[in-house]
Each structure stands twice: as C-alpha cells, then as structure tokens.
C-alpha cells in the first residue's frame, strides 16, 4: 500500500471569474505534518474547503486513499476519515466541553441511534483521554462559550481527535494564542501526527519551523515551492512574494 494519503490533481476553482485555486497538484503521505503557507488570497483556506467538501471544485480530482472526494458531500467525507478545523474556532457554545466532545464521537450518528444512546464507560474514557491531550480535563463541565479563544481552538482540535481521522485539516490552529499556548499546541500536534497525516495552514513562521516536516508555499492559487523549511527559506521566489517583507 502506498504511503500517499491525499493526492490533489489539477485542482481549480473560481468564484465569479476570480480564480482562487489554479491547477494545483499536491500530495501528502502518512505520518506527515505538512504546513501550507502563503500570502493572503493565495488559496490556502479554499484548498482545505475543497478537500473537506465545503466548496465544490470546478476542475480536478482529490483522492483520499482510494476515494474520490469531489463527488462526496460533507458528512460522507467526514465519515471516510477527514477532519476539518476552521479558522475561527467552531465549537458549540451552548453545550459543555464534555458534550462537545461527546457529539464528535464517531458512533450513533443516525436518528434512532442518537435518540437511545447511553454513555458507556469506554466512551467516557475516550473523552477523558482526549480532554487530557488538549489540556481541557479541568473544563469538561464548563460551557464552551466560557472558554478562552485558545481553549476553543484546543477544543475544536479535541473534537477532531474524537473522530480519529486519518487526515486532519487545520486552518490556523494557533491564531490568537499566547506564546505558552503555542508551545503546548506544537507539542500536541507533534503528538497526534504519527499514524495519520496533518495538513495545516499557518502564518506564524516560528511555529511552522517548530513543527513542520515539509512546507508547501501557495501564491495566487498556484504552487510556488515545496520542500523543507531550509529550502523554502532560501528560495528566491518565496522570499520575494512572502517572506521578504
């Protein structure tokens, strides 16, 4: 079995004539932690939107293992093992941290299953485990609305971990976090990457340097460069459009 988990071929999409992503090719392998960087409007978020089914591409293919994702809808893609974290943390503010994690548990996603669902000890164990991982063990009974911004980011990552996805798509997970929270998040990401693959968008170069195996640079919807952090940082074109100023 090949190690390639995600393979994007000739992917394009345009909105009212504006080409957001333009003929992009891109592959990610198992156990990889890939950072996608690039200036605003480079098409980073749009790329993740297309992988997870939020936006339909106008052209091209997205292969996740053996599945062609472009023909599937959001919840099917999620069930196939793709998890998505949004740029502004998307958690259920009216529910507690525990309930947020519980809903994300990938079982009983039907009507009657969820109606007659009972929380078993196994289940609770898994919630505690994830809560520990994302530093929210002491907040299980707090309403999500009461968490700090950084904690909400962690909670959303925790919700993805409950789903145990093979491919995690993270959109700026450390935005709005303190220096200490960033360190903890870097530890967390390194811990969860093995066994799956993580694609994340980030602007903070120090953070990218601390975690990334490989970096992909997008510019105006196209692939500009790809390689290790050192290669990227010495690439003339990248310095020109992104790192330079």
């Amino acid at each position, binding site marked *: 079995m090949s190690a390639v988990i995600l393979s994007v071929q000739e992917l394009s999409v345009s909105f009212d004539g504006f080409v957001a992503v333009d003929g992009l090719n891109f592959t990610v392998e198992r156990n990889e932690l890939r950072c996608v960087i690039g200036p605003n409007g480079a098409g980073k978020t749009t790329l993740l939107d297309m992988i997870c089914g939020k936006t339909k591409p106008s052209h091209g293919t997205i292969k996740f293992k053996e599945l062609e994702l472009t023909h599937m809808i959001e*919840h099917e893609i999620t069930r196939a093992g793709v*998890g998505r974290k949004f740029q502004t943390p*998307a958690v*259920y*503010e009216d529910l507690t941290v525990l309930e947020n994690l519980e809903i*994300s548990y990938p079982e*009983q996603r039907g*009507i009657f299953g969820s109606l007659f669902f009972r929380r078993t000890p196994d289940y609770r164990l898994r919630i505690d485990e994830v809560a520990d991982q994302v530093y929210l063990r002491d907040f299980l009974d707090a*309403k999500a609305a009461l968490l700090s911004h950084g904690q909400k980011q962690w909670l959303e990552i925790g919700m993805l971990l409950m789903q145990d996805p093979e491919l995690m798509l993270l959109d700026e997970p450390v935005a709005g976090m303190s220096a200490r929270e960033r360190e903890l998040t870097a530890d967390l990401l390194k811990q969860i990457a093995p066994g799956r693959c993580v694609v994340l968008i980030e602007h903070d170069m120090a953070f990218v340097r601390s975690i990334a195996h490989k970096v992909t640079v997008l510019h105006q919807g196209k692939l500009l460069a790809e390689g290790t952090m050192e290669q990227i940082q010495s690439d003339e074109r990248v310095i020109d459009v992104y790192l330079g100023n």
Partner: protein
Amino acid sequence: MTTSRMMSRVGLVPAILLALLLLVIFPVFLGSYWLNLISKYLVFGVVGVGIVLAWGYGGILSLGQGLFFGIGGYLMAMYLKLQASAPNLPDFMVWSSTEVLPWWWKPYYSLTVTLISIAVIPTVLAFVFAYAVFRKRVGGVYFAIVTLALALTLTVMLVGQQGYTGGANGITDFRTLAGMSIISDKAKLVLYFVQVVILFIVMGIGTAIVKSRLGKILIAIRDREDRVRFSGYDTALFKAFIFTVSALFSALGGALYSLQVGLITPTLVGVVASIEMIIYVAVGGRLSIVGAVVGALLVGWSKSVISESFPTIWLFFLGGLFIVITMFLPSGLAGLFSRIKLRSATIATPERTQ
C-alpha cells in the same frame, strides 16, 4: 455541572406544579364551562411542545403548523361527522348537492383507520417535504415562508371544495366517539382528563428527546450547522426528524381540538392560527416544554377574555404581545422564571458567584 443540574431540577418543579394545577386545582374549583375552555387551550399546549422541539431546539421556525393541525383536525372531524350523520350523508354535503360520499371519505367510518391516518399522513408528508427542503440547504426565513405558503394553500383548498370539506363553515355538529357521547357534561369531564394525560405523555416524549444525545445534536445544529456536518452527521436528516415530530404533535393537537371543541374550520388551521401557535410558545419560552404549555394556557385565556369583551382588538393585542416578548423577554416567561430563580440562588450563596 451545577447550572445544568439546577436547570433540570427547575424543569421538574414547574412540571409537578402544572400537574397539580391541571389535575387537582382546576377540576375542583372550576365549573364545566371553564374546564371546556381549558381543554381547548391545552390542545395548543400539545402543539406548543412540538414547536419548542423544532423551533427552540432545532432552530426551525415553521409558520405552517396549522397545516398539520388541520390534517389531524379534519381527519378526526371526518370520522366524527360520519358517526353523527350515519347512515345519511353529512349535512354540508347535502347542502352542496354532493350526492354520494366521496371514496376517500369512506375509510373514515372506522376509528382505527382514522387514528392511523392521523399518525401516518402528517408524518410522511412532513418528513418527505422537510428532508427534500433541508437537503437543498433551504433554511431560516426561507423555510418559514415556504411553510406559511403551505398553510395558506390548505385554507384555500378547504374553502374551495365546499362539497367535500364543508367550505368556510368547516365541519361541525359531532355527537359520539365509538358510540360514546362526547357532548354530555360527564363526557366533557372525561375528555378533559384524557386531554391532560395526553399532554403529559407528549411533554414526557419531548423531554426525553431534549435530554438525549439527539437533543444535544439539535442544539449543535442550531448553533453551528456546518460544524455538525463536519462531525459526520447528515444534518438534513436530523432537522427533518424533529420537524416531523413537531408536525405529528400538531396533528395530534388538531385531532384533539375537533374532539374537544366540536368543530373544525379553515380559519382554525390558516395563517393567522399558525402564527398564533408560534406566539403561544414565544410567550411561554421557546426552550421550555412546560413554558409552552403555560404560554398556551395564558394566551388562550386572555384570548377568551379579551375577544369576549372587545372582539376587534384581540389581534392588535396579540401582535403587541409578540413584539414586547421578542424585544424584552426573548426566552419568554420560562426565561424570566429561571432568571429570578438563578438570582435568588446566587443571593443565597454569594460565595458561588464567579
């Protein structure tokens, strides 16, 4: 933890008070005239529980609950009318010179068929309609407008087909249910208790749904539908389900209305009636099952009082009430109640405030 525990306790106390009021205090102190009226208000309590589920928890505002109320009400009325007029044709058919009973009236000689129809027809209709609409990602105010149009369509159809539906006068003059009188005072008293029991069963089902994992998922859908999709749920299915439950409760309410009040007309199932149902719930509190019932009782009672003395101002009063509630009490009387409760709790134990 403490707040959620407190909330569930707060939910139980009003339910017990309500049971006491309906099962003991009202029957002991009120005469049959008032008990009849209260039976009628409680019908809207049943409808209201459904609206709490769909609107309060699922975030689905339907302005067309009258459609399902009407289906339940008319189906029950067909049975009662056939009972009252057998072996002759129903009187309104004779007046409109309909000479034979239409084939689709015939099954309603049977009570069993009637009861099954009241359960099945609205369920199938509501689910197919709602799933198709939610699948297309139509929601919010657009959904409300579509349902409003459906309620309007039903009214037009009922009025237009006078020979089959009784037209604008509706269907009235019922006498018996399965051979038992439904108009004697004793029968009315029995019907009152039947109504209360059904209401509490419906409230129990509603509470069970709200407290289940499905209830949490509904809240999540209301707050962040996209996130729920990305947790692997088919959100259209969940929304269609809760809409169907609320449609079923409305149909049940309609059937009980025909039984309790002894008539059903197009005005009772039309646009204004549908919006009134929403107002009952808004007044009581759209997140509170007990609140919806209390809202139905209070608004129903003020409707009786006000429209008796000043028939023309009732609608203005209702409109004004809706505006005031929306602006100052968005979670209705139940919200006011829990706020007072919370305040007195924090005053009693100040060290627990954050």
